[in-house]
């Protein structure tokens, strides 16, 4: 959508070169560059907010020294930048006994998974890089790339802790994709579409038209979805793959410097993607909560961002509050609690739609 838009724009701007292949390449590269820029800025922002939110929860001040403020460095705004610079100038260490190609491949693979999910995320009414007809399905599919990267990282490090972490993440992410997927199936049934924009369009008309309030089962579906994506993004209480007090650092044990930073950034990028999907599928996406108020396209971006960042805030909040589950309890929760309830929800909502009409 955006690619076509830029391509058409370039063609109109320079009619004598219309249809040039270079325009197409530019039209494709521009959104990707914008996306990378967005992820970087977002990464700094969310890392800063994670530090600061955790500081408020833990009764400490957090970083105060770096960056501009009312007087020198009042809020530590540049702390994530300093962290980033520190990570990027570190020595790049690959353990001698590691499987070198796979070790190098793993961080890229996880970042590709995170980055490519972004292209189907609707930021606003018109602002979406590719408005695929199977957008929500695409995001679930591409999101699964992460598990390959985590296993690769765990295996190629040639470290027992990393291996434990990799194996745990494989079991965890594959399992939790099922309840997350089942929850989205319910949404797809209600909206009768896999297209992200159409799902959002279905929810037009204010708060009570959002899918989360569509029928009495939807809040449960939303909670199952949200907890499952917490597990999929390896956030506490499901951070078993890198549980720092048990497995040292899990699958990232042997990673340092830039490669570690990429893992770190991918985790936060994944958080954004799953929060955006949750906001799209359940909370009306870029629709305003008031049917005819603040409902212009510009406000759409604001609503989308505030819903997404609220969910990210909840993730941070949960992380700094609860302990971690054990690996068997994690599996128990998924297979014996979420999947049966999720399947029941699919069944119940299907009957609801047939009886009430969608």
């Amino acid at each position, binding site marked *: 959508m955006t690619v076509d838009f830029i391509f058409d724009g370039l063609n109109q701007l320079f009619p004598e070169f219309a249809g040039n292949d270079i325009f197409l390449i530019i039209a494709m590269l521009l959104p990707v560059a914008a996306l990378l820029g967005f992820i970087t800025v977002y990464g700094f922002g969310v890392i800063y907010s994670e530090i600061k939110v955790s500081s408020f929860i833990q009764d400490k001040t957090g970083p105060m020294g770096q960056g501009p403020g009312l007087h020198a460095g009042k809020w530590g705004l540049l702390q994530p930048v300093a962290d980033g610079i520190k990570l990027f100038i570190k020595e790049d260490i690959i353990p001698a006994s590691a499987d070198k190609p796979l070790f190098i491949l793993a961080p890229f693979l996880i970042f590709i998974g995170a980055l490519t999910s972004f292209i189907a995320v609707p930021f606003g009414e018109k602002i979406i890089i590719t408005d695929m007809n199977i957008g929500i399905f695409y995001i679930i599919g591409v999101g699964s790339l992460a598990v390959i990267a985590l296993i690769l990282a765990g295996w190629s490090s040639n470290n027992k802790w990393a291996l434990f972490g990799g194996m745990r993440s494989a079991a965890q992410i594959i399992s939790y994709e099922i309840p997350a997927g089942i929850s989205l199936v319910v949404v797809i049934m209600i909206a009768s579409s896999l297209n992200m924009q159409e799902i959002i369009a279905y929810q037009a008309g204010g708060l009570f038209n959002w899918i989360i309030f569509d029928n009495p089962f939807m809040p449960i579906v939303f909670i199952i979805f949200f907890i499952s994506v917490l597990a999929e993004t390896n956030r506490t209480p499901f951070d078993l793959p890198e549980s720092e*007090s048990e497995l040292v650092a899990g699958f990232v044990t042997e990673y340092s410097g830039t490669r570690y930073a990429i893992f770190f950034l991918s985790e936060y990028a994944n958080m954004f993607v799953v929060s955006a999907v949750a906001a799209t599928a359940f909370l009306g996406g870029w629709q305003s909560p008031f049917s005819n108020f603040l409902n212009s396209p510009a406000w759409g971006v604001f609503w989308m961002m505030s819903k997404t960042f609220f969910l990210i805030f909840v993730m941070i909040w949960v992380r700094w509050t609860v302990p971690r*589950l*054990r*690996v068997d309890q994690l599996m128990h929760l998924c297979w014996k609690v979420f999947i049966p309830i999720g399947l029941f929800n699919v069944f119940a909502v299907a009957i609801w739609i047939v009886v009430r009409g969608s």
Partner: protein
Amino acid sequence: MGVVHGEEMVLNIGPQHPATHGVLRLQVRTDGEVVSQITPYMGYLHRCFEKHSENVTYEQVIPFTDRCDYLSSMSMNFGYVVAMEKLMDIKVNNRVEHIRVVMAELQRIASHLLCTGVFGLDLGAFTPFLWALRDRERILDLFELTCGARLLYNYMWVGGLSHDIPTGFVESTFEFLDYFEPKVDELENILAHNKILVERSADIGVMPKDVAISYGVTGPNLRASGVKWDLRKNDPYSIYDKFDFDVPIGEGKKGTVGDCWDRFYVRIIEIRESVKIIRQALASMPKDGDVHQSLPKKLRPPKGSIYARTETPRGDLGYYIESDGSPIPYRVKMRSPAFTALSVLDEIGAGWLLSDVLAILGSLDIVLGEIDR
């Protein structure tokens, strides 16, 4: 470690590992995540304190005791001076006794705070740990006010104290206790009744009464197994018989008696009991009395030996001191409570998952400085 079968793997936890609370190496044999055997290897922090003590004077042993259990230095000092005073037959005045009890109980709170916080950290909850450290900091401030040191005090001397408490200490301690008591409830609420923490610790690593007794486990670990044994009650030293406090035991509220949750919860209740003791001791503390009154001119105990035990935050701390009549001890031996607690790990930890083993280790509250000495 013996024969390792095909599906099994030998894993070294430590000596540099976030959950080993110091430099401890646990060699575990795992089958997937299930741990079938745990062999602790200690000695990475061995500093020959007992041997050193045979070459320095009796006063110079006190800083060594500080550095053994660095999380409860006051209690370590206390045990040594109680033993020495018994050996030399010194009676200290009432003010000294009261100050010592206040310090020892403040130290118990500080130590238990760290233990409960770190137990949460072992289970993945980071915030309670920092809350606990925040409150522990206030206690360290009180110690700093008293003797200038925050961790290693060298405060209790044979026959007295290094300093009297400063002006305003009693008021600031009361102020701290008023601030602190609601914080204990907060800590209990975020940890003890958290569903995930209960799932992670109830029924895990159960230490039955007979196992605890036969291994010689003492302190909160023993009490969590349902044995009402506290030297402050059962064999009172100093002036503990004057105070009114309870000895909490594990009741198996969330699972079985003697599980990780009990070991953790007993410590939370003990914090509250210590607050009670401090309030009583501060209220009944005599206004006058020289803390240097009974300091002997020369520390030269008569020929003979003594074994005296006190209740530190980790259990029965025994000092065996043998004197040959010279100003240098012939032998100083310490009975370490954390050592026995560590030795029971294989018995109660084998068969659990890797995460559980680290939770059990955290619930035993070991300090490697004291184990290795």
